[in-house]
């Protein structure tokens, strides 16, 4: 167990990576064996993530140096700066890793039946595991160049997965757009990394954070990083790829794309709070994030209202949901003054991070419901659906839970996190809360439209013989629904256990720096 714990940071990335390349081989044995293999890999990765999470929450930040005599030897004798590839995991990293692994497990479980009749599933599962490895790498790395590499891995595997329905031209088009956006974003991240490397001769985030001057070059790098990661997270006005990709990808892939967007949001936070934590003009950058967040909320939800394709509509609400997270975190950043954060600012960050978890669950469930409807009816056009509640009772119940959660209805999880965001944003500027609350009401209207048009109404002739989806798909949706209810009923436990430590880790850039420089007792 000690060995596993010591090497957990790298094993968490290596396991899905190794699993990805073994999957095509195991697929030769039998498809069922392959599916079980993928689930076992994901369960092992989840187990290691839980181990690491427990360790980080009780013992603080963990560093892991690859290729060194000791996994904690960040700066060998004779060196003045950290060398080698270093992973640095704090409470925020493990929170994000937990989200990514959980969604990947749900996606694989759901795919068992959902993708059963498709060909090329060896490639599908390989890409799914690669996408997870990329996300986990982004979340656990302590190195800017590795962040770029893992971002590329997520973009490439995500693009191939979006194009998985190769028989549909729209999927290929959406994948092409996803590829262009991913490549442009990665290119600008690489440019920013090159600027920082040229100036400080280093790539390690902690070391860079300790040296950064906020020079003109640093500001350019910051602009490039904020722009690129905000686009990958799906912030307005750089959000347009998101409904395209989410709407055309298989539903099991869409929930992985949700996790991938959240990984990009994590990178944005890491840049603003840690890399530039010591020198950032927090008010200006905080307000930049707030404005991007408010725009995302408003445009995302209003555009969702006029959509008639199920998954595409959820794609637009995903834009709005990212806006809520950015609003919460932006309020926290803007409230930092003279190196200390206001009480409401800390709560705002907690609200934002709690909403990251809730968004993964809520949108994940809604995408799976959209997939279930498509699986049973072969249609995703809301204008052609109706009366499905007669034949798909469990799916309808799961949709109602997802609807209530994403719209912020009490007592669901979305209400708790949104309430924290409303109250804290109000203390910075009441207009922000008013827009956020009105948008949340509109979000409810959006999903009431879906509920009415797809599930309510008389039993339509064309769907008389529609059946409920298979058990594995119901279990996948059920797991998410159970977590939504538990997180909604006991938000304080979730906040105290993992969200508060993650928020504290986010603002404690000095602790992150000290750990890498060996000042905090490595």
């Amino acid at each position, binding site marked *: 167990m000690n060995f596993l714990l010591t090497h957990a940071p790298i094993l968490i990335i290596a396991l899905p990576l190794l699993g990805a390349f073994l999957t095509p081989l195991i697929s030769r044995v039998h498809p069922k064996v392959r599916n079980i293999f993928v689930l076992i890999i994901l369960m092992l990765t989840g187990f290691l993530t839980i181990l690491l999470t427990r360790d980080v929450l009780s013992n603080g930040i963990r560093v892991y140096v690859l290729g060194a005599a000791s996994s904690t030897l960040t700066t060998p004798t004779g060196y003045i700066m950290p060398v080698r590839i270093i992973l640095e995991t704090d409470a925020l990293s493990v929170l994000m890793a937990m989200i990514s692994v959980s969604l990947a497990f749900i996606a694989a479980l759901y795919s068992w039946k959902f993708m059963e009749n498709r060909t090329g599933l060896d490639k599908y599962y390989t890409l799914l595991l690669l996408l997870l490895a990329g996300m986990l790498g982004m979340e656990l790395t302590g190195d800017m160049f590795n962040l770029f590499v893992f971002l590329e891995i997520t973009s490439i595997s995500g693009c191939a997965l979006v194009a998985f329905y190769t028989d549909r031209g729209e999927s290929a088009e959406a994948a*092409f*757009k996803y590829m262009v956006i991913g490549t442009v974003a990665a290119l600008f991240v690489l440019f920013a990394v090159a600027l920082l490397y040229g100036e400080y001769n280093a790539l390690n985030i902690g070391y860079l954070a300790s040296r950064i001057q906020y020079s003109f070059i640093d500001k350019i790098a*910051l602009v490039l990083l904020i*722009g690129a990661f905000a686009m990958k997270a799906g912030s307005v006005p*750089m959000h347009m790829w998101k409904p395209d990709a989410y709407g055309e990808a298989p539903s099991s892939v869409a929930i992985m794309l949700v996790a991938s967007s959240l990984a990009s949001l994590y990178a944005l936070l890491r840049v603003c709070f840690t890399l530039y934590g010591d020198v950032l003009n927090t008010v200006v950058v905080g307000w930049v994030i707030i404005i991007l967040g408010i725009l995302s909320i408003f445009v995302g939800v209003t555009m969702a209202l006029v959509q008639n394709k199920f998954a595409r509509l959820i794609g637009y609400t995903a834009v709005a949901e990212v806006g809520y997270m950015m609003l919460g975190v932006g309020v926290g950043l803007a409230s930092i003054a003279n190196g200390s954060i206001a009480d*409401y600012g800390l709560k705002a960050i907690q609200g934002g991070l709690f909403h990251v978890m809730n968004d993964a669950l809520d949108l994940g469930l809604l995408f799976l419901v959209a997939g279930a409807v498509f699986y049973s009816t072969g249609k995703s056009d809301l204008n052609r659906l109706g009366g499905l509640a007669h034949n798909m009772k469990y799916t309808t119940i799961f949709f109602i839970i997802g609807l209530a959660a994403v719209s912020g209805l009490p007592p669901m999880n979305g209400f708790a996190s949104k309430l924290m965001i409303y*109250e804290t944003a*109000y203390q910075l500027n009441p207009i922000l809360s008013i827009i956020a609350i009105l948008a949340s009401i509109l979000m409810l209207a959006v999903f009431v439209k879906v509920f009415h048009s797809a599930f309510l109404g008389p039993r339509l002739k064309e769907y008389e013989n529609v059946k409920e989806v298979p058990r594995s798909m119901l279990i996948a949706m059920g797991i998410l629904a159970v977590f939504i209810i538990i997180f909604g009923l006991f938000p*304080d436990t979730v906040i105290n256990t993992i969200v508060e430590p993650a928020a504290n880790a986010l603002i404690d850039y000095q602790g992150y720096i000290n750990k890498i420089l060996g000042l905090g007792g490595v």
Partner: protein
Amino acid sequence: MFGTLETSAGYWNAIIFVIAFVVIALVVYILRAFGEKAYKKDSEQTKPFLSGNPEPEKENVHIRAGNLFWGFTEALKDYYTPAVKEHTGIVNDYVYWFVIVLAVLFIIIGVGT
């Protein structure tokens, strides 16, 4: 108290909400029990009255998604027309927006602070 979340300006307890919901639902159920009992299921009473016109087939009266919130979108036509138009679906435009955001951020962060 168990389950109480501090939300900066106030508190939230979902358990109390659920208890209150159950209590109110019970009260509503009891009140309902005192209601009119002359209702007969599957009788003429359940049919809608459409000014004397015959009731159309149920499948034909299902309001489809495209017709919902028509009034809302019509009232906000000045917003929706350009907003929908701006979502061209052309990837070049997506990259243009990215460049515009970078330019604005550069002015705000790079030059302004």
